[in-house]
């Protein structure tokens, strides 16, 4: 069930746990699903030379990111027998301890859900034009580096 239209994945601010719960709950009507795999990115209070990271401010080239995410989604649906996939990424300020990324895949069997989730996370980190500005002590900043 590949979805053909690019979906918006961006959301202002952090992703609340209640939003994640609602998303899980909605799948209880889909009775062919046997396994869900979820990845959550949480902002770390990393210690840096300049001080402790208090938040990350996310910006994106949104239009390009949504087109790219659409291609990733189509690739993943072509590769794995998924029932559905949901991706949400924060824009703007996300405080340390808050959730900035929510990737959610579901399938009849666990392997497809687990592998699709992991691959989606890897690809979106490498391919989406999104940037994180690490705010340090409210004054200084440095730019996040993905590994």
């Amino acid at each position: 069930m590949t979805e053909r239209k690019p979906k918006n994945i961006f959301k202002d601010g952090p992703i609340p746990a209640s939003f994640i719960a609602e998303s899980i709950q909605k799948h209880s009507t889909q009775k062919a699903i046997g396994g869900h795999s979820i990845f959550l990115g949480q902002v770390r209070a990393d210690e840096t030379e300049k001080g402790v990271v208090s938040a990350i401010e996310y910006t994106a080239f949104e239009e390009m990111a949504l087109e790219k995410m659409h291609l990733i989604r189509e690739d993943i649906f072509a590769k794995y027998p998924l029932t559905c996939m949901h991706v949400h990424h924060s824009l703007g300020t996300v405080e340390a301890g808050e959730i900035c990324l929510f990737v959610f895949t579901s399938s009849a069997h666990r392997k497809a859900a687990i592998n699709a989730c992991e691959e989606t996370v890897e690809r979106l980190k490498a391919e989406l034009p999104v940037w994180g500005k690490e705010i340090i002590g409210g004054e200084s900043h440095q730019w996040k580096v993905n590994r």
Partner: protein
Amino acid sequence: MQVKVLIFGQLTDITGLSELLVTDVSTSNELIESLTGKYPELATAKYVVALDKKVISQETQLPDNSTVALLPPFSGG
């Protein structure tokens, strides 16, 4: 002849702005040269260039009213 330039991430620390209009350049190389003249730190910065949301890797003709984006290494998630 006019091109919109979008600047993202750490490159905005160099340019101080996230969007500018450039006239009188006809290729991507000419544009980068012009920008690097104005913002010399761009010369050592790491980024790729996207023309109308597609990454380009060689000198490309810029259509009138096209949009060029300078994209430093991604760090989403």
